[in-house]
């Protein structure tokens, strides 16, 4: 299935873009998705703190992702 992944902050640098289309097997949780992303983009292994939202809502533990869902990756930022 195809997903749209939107990235903020340092996750943007890792993906090399604000937004990508990503192909992944059907019925995966957001944890599976992150494991997959770590294989495609190894720098995600370093980013130990990353908030994931699915369709504009903070992803709950084990929450599944469906086709055409919008996944947003939000690393913490500290600037003030």
């Amino acid at each position: 299935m195809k997903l749209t992944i939107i990235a903020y902050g340092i996750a943007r640098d890792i993906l090399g873009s604000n937004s990508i289309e990503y192909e992944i097997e059907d019925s995966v949780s957001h944890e599976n998705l992150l494991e997959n992303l770590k294989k495609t983009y190894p720098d995600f292994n370093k980013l130990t703190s990353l908030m994931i939202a699915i369709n504009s809502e903070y992803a709950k533990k084990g929450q599944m992702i469906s086709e055409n869902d919008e996944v947003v990756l939000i690393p913490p930022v500290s600037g003030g």
Partner: protein
Amino acid sequence: MNTVTFSKEELERYSRHLIIPEFNIEGQRKLKSARVLVVGTGGLGSPLLLYLTAAGVGTIGILDFDVVDDSNLQRQVLFSVDDVGNPKVEAAKKRLVGLNPHVNFIVHNIMLTSDNALDIIKDYDLVADGTDNFPTRYLVNDACVILGKPNVYASIFRFEGQVSVFNYKGGPHYRDLFPSPPPPGLVPSCAEGGVIGVLPGIIGSLQANEVLKILSGIGDTLSGRLFLFDALTFETRTLKVHKNPETPEIKELIDYDQFCGLNLNGKANKEDVKEITVEELKALQDSKEEYQLIDVREAYEYDICNLEGELIPLGAILDSVEKIASNKKVIVHCRSGARSATAITQLERKYNFDNLYNLKGGILAWADRIDTSMAKY
């Protein structure tokens, strides 16, 4: 609440608030009786303090330990050229008293630490977090959770801003969103990664608005929502966030530098890399000894100032190993010495170099101690 009264001057000053039906004099009374602590007087602290003062919050705590620097003025609109070198809290108070003499200011010219945070924050109704580093963000969050104070949060990076309201009426807090900090050095601060000057003005103003809504009790706050703003694309997003059942209960304050992987000086715990001072590098330049100088910053930083080193940005260092000498001293430098230490660690681990030296303090130290005509950034 009715014991709060206003002078003629105050009524005239706040008249535009008093005639808003939802706000009216009750809202203004709530502001006047409120005590707000603004942590950090930087990019976010500037609009926060200016608008909270102008709006008539009764007591405002101003907390910072730094002095005003030339590089602050690009975004920290609280300060003027005359303030450079002076304590930020004093410069802020001077400006704010001029803006609204009816506000009571409390100055905290100190660094917020685990030892003093609870004692300082307990006297306030609400905290607005405009700090610039992860240890203090977790400290402010945890102290607010322990004391049951709302934490109006905002944070910025380059063109991006985040705003939320934490620990308000049973809503989520910072650790529900970000249970652990990123590894040190990975997420750059404004000083390392840069920030567009107007961004904190936008984000800090949104933060001030949330503070005023909470104090006056009107509208729907950002509690349970995280607002994201991208100034470059003008895209906004408001994400629903909730309490995470796995967030551990916060019972006491901890060592936040250690929690965030920093040592006592606030620097990343560096592996033991060999170091060379700028004076030693200068002596090396003046001697006949052969050496190689590598600059691991980005090309756009090189254009601001450089030591005529060979430019190999940190991200490309492991793929450029053939350019790095193994038969003479190799001095590696960056802006402050952090990235170059990372570069050396990576090279030593992967390729077993033993001739790499980190320029201590980076090009900033060079500009301070060897070539004072060089621009610092």
